C-alpha cells in the first residue's frame, strides 16, 4: 500500500509544484490538480478497500521515526480511510465542477484547493494536538482564500467575519493546547487520554478550551453566524467542500478530543449537538435563500452527528455505523445540493422551479432530499433506526423526542422546497447544465444510492435495495423513456405477479389487504391507460407506493414494517404532488405522515427496548408500564395515515387535488395501510390502560368523532372530490371504531369497511374524476343534469352511493348489519350516539353528490359533452360487478376472515349456513333480500309502465314554476350550499378548530424562528461576542462536569 503520508505530501507537493508552473499553462495546472486529487482519492480508496474488505489492521505512521510523544504520529484506520476518501472525492468533484472558475483564476486558486483538501486529510489522520491546530489554521487560511472564488460580492464580508472568529478560536485553541501540554506532558492525543488529562490539575480547563475551539469549527448554534454567511455567499462548489468535507473532518477531530475528555464530556457534546440540530432546523424554516437554508441544514446535520458522538456511551459499537450513516448521507446530499444550487440562477427557493423539465436533475434532487430526511433505502434511514432504538433502549427519551422533532422540521422545509421545484411557476429560461457539472451532481446521486446499498448490507436487517418490490419500482426509473401504456401494462403485470407469488403465504387478513392493495391497485391502474404520452415520474412513484404496501403486509419485524411504511409514504407523496394544485396539500401530507412515521419509530423503539431486531409478534410481550405508551405512539402514528380527526387536515386537499387515477389509489388503497397498522397493533397489544383510561375506548371516541366530523364536513363541500375525501375521513372513522370495539364482529365490520370502502371510494373517485375531466370543473354546482349525457357514470355513482349509504340490498348494508350486531357486545355505549348521527349524515352528502352532478338542470356549456373515457369507465364497471357479487355472497370474502378472527375473539362468530347469515342476535339473508326487493321493484315497474304507457318526454325547462318559466339553468339548479339549514343548525361543529390548531402551531414555529434569527445581525463583532458568550456560558454550565 502507498503510505497515507503521501496523501498529505501529494497535496502539499502539488500545491508547491503549481507555483512553479507558468501562469499561462492553466490547462496543465488544472490537469495536475485533478491528478493530485484523484491520486490521493485513489490512495484513500485503496486503504478503505484494505480495511473494509481485506480486514487490515489500522496502521500508525510515525513521521519522525519515533513513536509519540517524541514525534507527530498519524493513524489510519477504517473511519479515517472512509473520511479521507470522502474529503478527497469531494475535493476532486468540486474541482471538476469548478473547471471554469479555476481555469479563470489560475494556479493559485488550484493550490489553495489542494491545500484545503490536504489539511482535511491532516485533521483526519493526525493524532497530535498541535498538529491538529496547524491543520485547522491551514483550513482557515485556505477557506479565506477559497471564499473569494465566489462571484457573490458579499463573499468578502463573509470571509472576513470568518477570519475574525477564527482568530478567537485560534487564541482559545493555542492556550488550551499549551496548558494541556503543560498538564499532560505530551501533545499526543492518545497520550493525553492515557494520562487522563481532565483529571489533572488545570487539565480540565485546558481541555475545555481545546474542546470548545474545535467544537466551534462545527458552527454550533448560536456561535455560528459567520458560517451561515459563508454558506450563503461562497461558491457552491466550495460550500460543498465546506459543508460535506470540512465539517466531517472537524467532527472527526471532535471525536478524537472526546477520547481525551472521556465520558464526562459526552453530555456536553450531546447538548451542543442537539441544540444545534433543533435550533438550526427551526431557523431554517423561514429562510428563502437556498444556500443559507442549506447552511442551516448543514449546521443541523453536523449537530445531529455531534449528538450521536455524544451518545457514544450507549451507542457503543454502533456509533460508527450510526454516525457514519448520518455523516455520509449528509455529506453526499449536501455536497450534491450545493452543486445543484450552482446550476440554478436565482437564489430564492422558488427559483428552483428551473429544475423542472430536467428529469435527471430532479432525480438527483430527490435522492439528496431522501438522504437528508433519512428515508429508506439510504444510510440515514438505517442509522436513524439504530440510533432511535438505542436511545429508547436506554431511556433517553427527551433526546429521542428532540431528534425526531428536529428531523421533522428539516423534512418540512426540504419537502416544501421540493414542492416549489415541482409546482412552482414555470421558469422563463430553461437551464442547460454543463456536462461536467451535471455529471458531478449525478455522481453524487449515484454515490448516495451506492451508500444506501452499502449501509443496507452493513445493517443487521435486510438490505432494502435487495428487496424485489423496491427494485421493481426503481426499475421504472430506467424505463421512463417508454410510452405510458407499456409501463402501465408492466406495472399491472408486476402487481398481479407479486400477488400470485405471495398468495400461498398470506393468512386471511393479509390476503384481504393484499387483494385490495395489489389486485385492487392493478385494477385502478387500468384507468391509467387513458393517459397520453410518457407520464414521466408517475410509475416510479406509484410503484414505490405499491412496493411499500406489498412489503408492509408481509413484514414480520418492526424494521421491515417501518421501512415499508416509509416507502409507501414517500411514493404516495410523489403521486399526490403530481396534481395540478396539490403542492400545499402534498406538503402537509408528507409532514403529517413523517410525523406519524416518527411516532411509529419511537413506538417500536420503545417496545424493542434497545434490540434493533423486533418481531411484530413481540408487541404482545411488551412489559406493562411501557406498553400503553407504545400503544399510544403507534396508534397515533397509524392514525395519521387513516386521517383520524385531529390528524386529518392533510387528507381533503391531498385526495382532491390528486390526478384522476391517483385519487382512488391514495383514497381506496393508501388509507388501508393505516388500518392495517391498527389491525396489527390491536391484534398484538389488545387493550391497554393509561392512567386508568382504556385506550381502545379513546380510539372508539376518536373513530366516532372522525365519522361524525368527516361526514359533517363532507356535506358542506362544493368540490366533488373534496366531498369524497372528507367522506373517507368519516369512513375510516367507522373502521377505526369497529376495530376499537375489540370484539369479533367489530373487527369483521372493520374488514368489511376495508373492502367496501376500497370498492366504492375507488369507483366514486374514478367516476367523479372522469366527470371532472369532461366538464373541466370539480365544483358540483357548476354541473347538473349530466345523467342523459353520462349515463354510465351515473349508474356507477348510483350503485356506489347506494352501497355506501348502507341501503339494502347492496353490500353496504352488510357492513351496517355487522355493525349493529357488533355494538350489542361493545363495552361502551356513548360513542354510538355520534356513530348513529353520522350514518344519516353520510346519506346527505351522497345524495348531494349524485343530485348536483347528474340530476337537476343541464348547463349550456355541457350540452355537448361526452361520456367519460372508456378506460376510466372500465374499472368502475368491474367495481359494480364486484359490489353486486359481494352484496349477494359476502361470505366469499368474509367467511375465512371470520374464522381467522376467531383466533383472537372466539366469541360472536357468525354462522354462514346456507343463504342466511346468523349472529348471536339476528340474521340476514342477502340473496333473499335481493330477490324480494327485485321482484317487488320489477312488478311495480311493470305496472307503472302499463298505466303510464303514453307518457310524453319533456325537456328540462318544462317544469311548473308558479306560472313563470325558469330563467337560465344556472339559476334553476338548486345546488350551491345545498344543506344551508344544516349549516345553521350544526354548522358550529364544522369550525376549523383542528386546522386552526395546526396553523397556529406552524405559525408559532415560523414566528419563533423568524424572531430567533434576528439574533444573527450580520455584524462580525456581534458574532464574535456570540462566540465568547457561548464559550462563557458553556464553561459555566460545564463546571458541573
Amino acid at each position, binding site marked *: 500500500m502507498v503510505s497515507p503520508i503521501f496523501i498529505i505530501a501529494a497535496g502539499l507537493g502539488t500545491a508547491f509544484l503549481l507555483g512553479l508552473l507558468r501562469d499561462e499553462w492553466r490547462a496543465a495546472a488544472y490537469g495536475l490538480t485533478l491528478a493530485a486529487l484523484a491520486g490521493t482519492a485513489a490512495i484513500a480508496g485503496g486503504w478503505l478497500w484494505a480495511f473494509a474488505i481485506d480486514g487490515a489492521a489500522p496502521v500508525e505512521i510515525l513521521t519522525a521515526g519515533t513513536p509519540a510523544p517524541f514525534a507527530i504520529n498519524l493513524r489510519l484506520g477504517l473511519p479515517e480511510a472512509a473520511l479521507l476518501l470522502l474529503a478527497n472525492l469531494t475535493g476532486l468533484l468540486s474541482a471538476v465542477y469548478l473547471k471554469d472558475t479555476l481555469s479563470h483564476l489560475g494556479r493559485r486558486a488550484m493550490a489553495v484547493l489542494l491545500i484545503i483538501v490536504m489539511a482535511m486529510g491532516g485533521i483526519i489522520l493526525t493524532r497530535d494536538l498541535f498538529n491538529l491546530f496547524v491543520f485547522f489554521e491551514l483550513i482557515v487560511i485556505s477557506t479565506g482564500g477559497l471564499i473569494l472564488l465566489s462571484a457573490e460580492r458579499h463573499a468578502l464580508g463573509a470571509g472576513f467575519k470568518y477570519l475574525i472568529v477564527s482568530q478567537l478560536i485560534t487564541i482559545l485553541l493555542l492556550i488550551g493546547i499549551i496548558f494541556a501540554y503543560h498538564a499532560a506532558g505530551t501533545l499526543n492525543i492518545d497520550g493525553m487520554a492515557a494520562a487522563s488529562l481532565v483529571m489533572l490539575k488545570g487539565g480540565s480547563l485546558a481541555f475545555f478550551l481545546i474542546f470548545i475551539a474545535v467544537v466551534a469549527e462545527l458552527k454550533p448554534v448560536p456561535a455560528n453566524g459567520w458560517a451561515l454567511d459563508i454558506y450563503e455567499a461562497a461558491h457552491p462548489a466550495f460550500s460543498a467542500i465546506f459543508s460535506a468535507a470540512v465539517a466531517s473532518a472537524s467532527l472527526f477531530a471532535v471525536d478524537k478530543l472526546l477520547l481525551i475528555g472521556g465520558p464526562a464530556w459526552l453530555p456536553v457534546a450531546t447538548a451542543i449537538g442537539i441544540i444545534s440540530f433543533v435550533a438550526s432546523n427551526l431557523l431554517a424554516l423561514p429562510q428563502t435563500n437556498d444556500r443559507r437554508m442549506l447552511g442551516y441544514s448543514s449546521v443541523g446535520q453536523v449537530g445531529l452527528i455531534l449528538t450521536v458522538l455524544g451518545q457514544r456511551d450507549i451507542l457503543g459499537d454502533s456509533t460508527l455505523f450510526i454516525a457514519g450513516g448520518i455523516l455520509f448521507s449528509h455529506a453526499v446530499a449536501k455536497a450534491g445540493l450545493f452543486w445543484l444550487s450552482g446550476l440554478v440562477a436565482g437564489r430564492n427557493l422558488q427559483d428552483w422551479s428551473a429544475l423542472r423539465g430536467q428529469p435527471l436533475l430532479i432525480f438527483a434532487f430527490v435522492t439528496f432530499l431522501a438522504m437528508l430526511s433519512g428515508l429508506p433505502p439510504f444510510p440515514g434511514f438505517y442509522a436513524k433506526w439504530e440510533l432511535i432504538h438505542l436511545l429508547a433502549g436506554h431511556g433517553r427519551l427527551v433526546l429521542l423526542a428532540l431528534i425526531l422533532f428536529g428531523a421533522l422540521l428539516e423534512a418540512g422545509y426540504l419537502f416544501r422546497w421540493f414542492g416549489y421545484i415541482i409546482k412552482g411557476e414555470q421558469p422563463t429560461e430553461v437551464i442547460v447544465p454543463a456536462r461536467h457539472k451535471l455529471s458531478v451532481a449525478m455522481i453524487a446521486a449515484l454515490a448516495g444510492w451506492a451508500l444506501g446499498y452499502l449501509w443496507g448490507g452493513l445493517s443487521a436487517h435486510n438490505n432494502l435495495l435487495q428487496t424485489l418490490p423496491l427494485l421493481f419500482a426503481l426499475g421504472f426509473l430506467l424505463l421512463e423513456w417508454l410510452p405510458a401504456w407499456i409501463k402501465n401494462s408492466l406495472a399491472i403485470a408486476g402487481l398481479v405477479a407479486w400477488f400470485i407469488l405471495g398468495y400461498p403465504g398470506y393468512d386471511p387478513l393479509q390476503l384481504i389487504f393484499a387483494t385490495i392493495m395489489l389486485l385492487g391497485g392493478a385494477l385502478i391502474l387500468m384507468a391509467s391507460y387513458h393517459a397520453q404520452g410518457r407520464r414521466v415520474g408517475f410509475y416510479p412513484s406509484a410503484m414505490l407506493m405499491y412496493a411499500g404496501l406489498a412489503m408492509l403486509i408481509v413484514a414480520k419485524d418492526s424494521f421491515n414494517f417501518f421501512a415499508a411504511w416509509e416507502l409507501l409514504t414517500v411514493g404516495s407523496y410523489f403521486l399526490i404532488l403530481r396534481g395540478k394544485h396539490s403542492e400545499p396539500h402534498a406538503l402537509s401530507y408528507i409532514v403529517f405522515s413523517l410525523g406519524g412515521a416518527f411516532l411509529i419509530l419511537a413506538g417500536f423503539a420503545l417496545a424493542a427496548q434497545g434490540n434493533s431486531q423486533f418481531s411484530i409478534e413481540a408487541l404482545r410481550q411488551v412489559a406493562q408500564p411501557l406498553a400503553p405508551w407504545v400503544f399510544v405512539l403507534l396508534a397515533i402514528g397509524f392514525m395519521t395515515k387513516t386521517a383520524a380527526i385531529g390528524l386529518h387536515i392533510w387528507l381533503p386537499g391531498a385526495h382532491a387535488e390528486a390526478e384522476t387515477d391517483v385519487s382512488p389509489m391514495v383514497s381506496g388503497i393508501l388509507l388501508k395501510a393505516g388500518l392495517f397498522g391498527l389491525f396489527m397493533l390491536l391484534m398484538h397489544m389488545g387493550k391497554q390502560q393509561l392512567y386508568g383510561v382504556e385506550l381502545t375506548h379513546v380510539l372508539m371516541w376518536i373513530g366516532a368523532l372522525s365519522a361524525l366530523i368527516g361526514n359533517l364536513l363532507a356535506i358542506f363541500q362544493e368540490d366533488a372530490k373534496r366531498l369524497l375525501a372528507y367522506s373517507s375521513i368519516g369512513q375510516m372513522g367507522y373502521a377505526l371504531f369497529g376495530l376499537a370495539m375489540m370484539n369479533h364482529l367489530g373487527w369483521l365490520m372493520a374488514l368489511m369497511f376495508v373492502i367496501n370502502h376500497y370498492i366504492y371510494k375507488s369507483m366514486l373517485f374514478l367516476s367523479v374524476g372522469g366527470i371532472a375531466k*369532461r*366538464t*373541466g*370543473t370539480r365544483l358540483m354546482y357548476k354541473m347538473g343534469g349530466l345523467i342523459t349525457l353520462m349515463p354510465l357514470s351515473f349508474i356507477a355513482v348510483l350503485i356506489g352511493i347506494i352501497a355506501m349509504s348502507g341501503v339494502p340490498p347492496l353490500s353496504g348494508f352488510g357492513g351496517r348489519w355487522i355493525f349493529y350486531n357488533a355494538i350489542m357486545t361493545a363495552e361502551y355505549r356513548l360513542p354510538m350516539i355520534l356513530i348513529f348521527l353520522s350514518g344519516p349524515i353520510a346519506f346527505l352528502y351522497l345524495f348531494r353528490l349524485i343530485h348536483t352532478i347528474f340530476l337537476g338542470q343541464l348547463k*349550456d*356549456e*355541457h*350540452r*355537448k*359533452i361526452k361520456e367519460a373515457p372508456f378506460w376510466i369507465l372500465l374499472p368502475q364497471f368491474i367495481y359494480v360487478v364486484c359490489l353486486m357479487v359481494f352484496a349477494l355472497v359476502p361470505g366469499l370474502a368474509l367467511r375465512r376472515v371470520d374464522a381467522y378472527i376467531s383466533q383472537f375473539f372466539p366469541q360472536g362468530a357468525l354462522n354462514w349456513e346456507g343463504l342466511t347469515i346468523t349472529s348471536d342476535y339476528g340474521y340476514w339473508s342477502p340473496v333473499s333480500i335481493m330477490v324480494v326487493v327485485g321482484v317487488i321493484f320489477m312488478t311495480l315497474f311493470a305496472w307503472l309502465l302499463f298505466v303510464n304507457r*303514453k307518457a*310524453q*318526454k*319533456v*325537456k*328540462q*325547462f*318544462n317544469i*311548473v314554476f308558479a*306560472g*313563470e*318559466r*325558469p*330563467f*337560465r*339553468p344556472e339559476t334553476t339548479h338548486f345546488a350551491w350550499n345545498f344543506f344551508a339549514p344544516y349549516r345553521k343548525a350544526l354548522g358550529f361543529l364544522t369550525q376549523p378548530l383542528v386546522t386552526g390548531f395546526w396553523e397556529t402551531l406552524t405559525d408559532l414555529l415560523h414566528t419563533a424562528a423568524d424572531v430567533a434569527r434576528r439574533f444573527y445581525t450580520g455584524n462580525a463583532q456581534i458574532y464574535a461576542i456570540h462566540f465568547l458568550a457561548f464559550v462563557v456560558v458553556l464553561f459555566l454550565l460545564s463546571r458541573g462536569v
Partner: protein
Amino acid sequence: MKAELEKRIVKGPDGIEFEVDPLQDYYCQEAPTVMPAAYSKIVEGFFNWARAESLWILGFGTGCGAIEMRPLMTPRFDAYRYGVQWRPTPRQANLFIISGYLSVKTLKRAIRSYEQMQNPKYVIGLGSCTINGGMYWDSYNTLKRLDYYLPVDLYIAGCMPRPEALLQGFEDLKEIIRAGKGEGANQYAQYFDWYKMNQKQVIHDWDMPDYNW
C-alpha cells in the same frame, strides 16, 4: 323575446363553440294531442265518476275572486266534504278556477299553468269579468272573454259570486263531468291553433313555446 330565450353561442369545456337555442333545447315543442277516452264505456264512466268526486283545484288566484275561495276551506262551507281539494302545483290539479278579471300579464301565466295540468282538466270562469269583462269592460289591460283563450267548462256569474255559488258551481261541474262532457282539454288540443291565435293576439311579447308541457 327576452334575452335569455335568444339563441346564444356557448363554449364547451373542451373549447368547442356551439349554438344553444333555448326554446328548442330547453322546452319540449310538441303540440298536445286529443287523448281518447278509455276503451270501455263502463271504465270511462267509472273514471268520470272518480274525476267528478275528486276535484283538485289549482291554488292560483288570478284575480279578486280568489278571496271568495278561501271561505270554502273553512268550517262554514267546508268544500272538502265534496271531494274538493286545493293543490299547489298544476301537475296535480285538474280544476283551474279563473277567479275574476284576467289581465294580459296574468293570462300568460294562466295559459302556462293550464297547459301544465294533465288531461282531463276543467276550467271554471268565476265572476262577470271572465264572462264579458264586467266592470273592467273598458280597461286597457283586462280580457273580456275567457273562452276565447281557454276552454271553459262552467261560468259562475256574479261580482263576486258568493262561496255558496261556488259550491253550487262544483256540483254543476260534477254533473258535466259525470255526463262525459268535461272534455275541455281535448277541445283545447283539437282547436289548438285557434286558441293560440287568440292568445297571441293579446299577448304581444310571446316568450314561451306554443305549448307548455
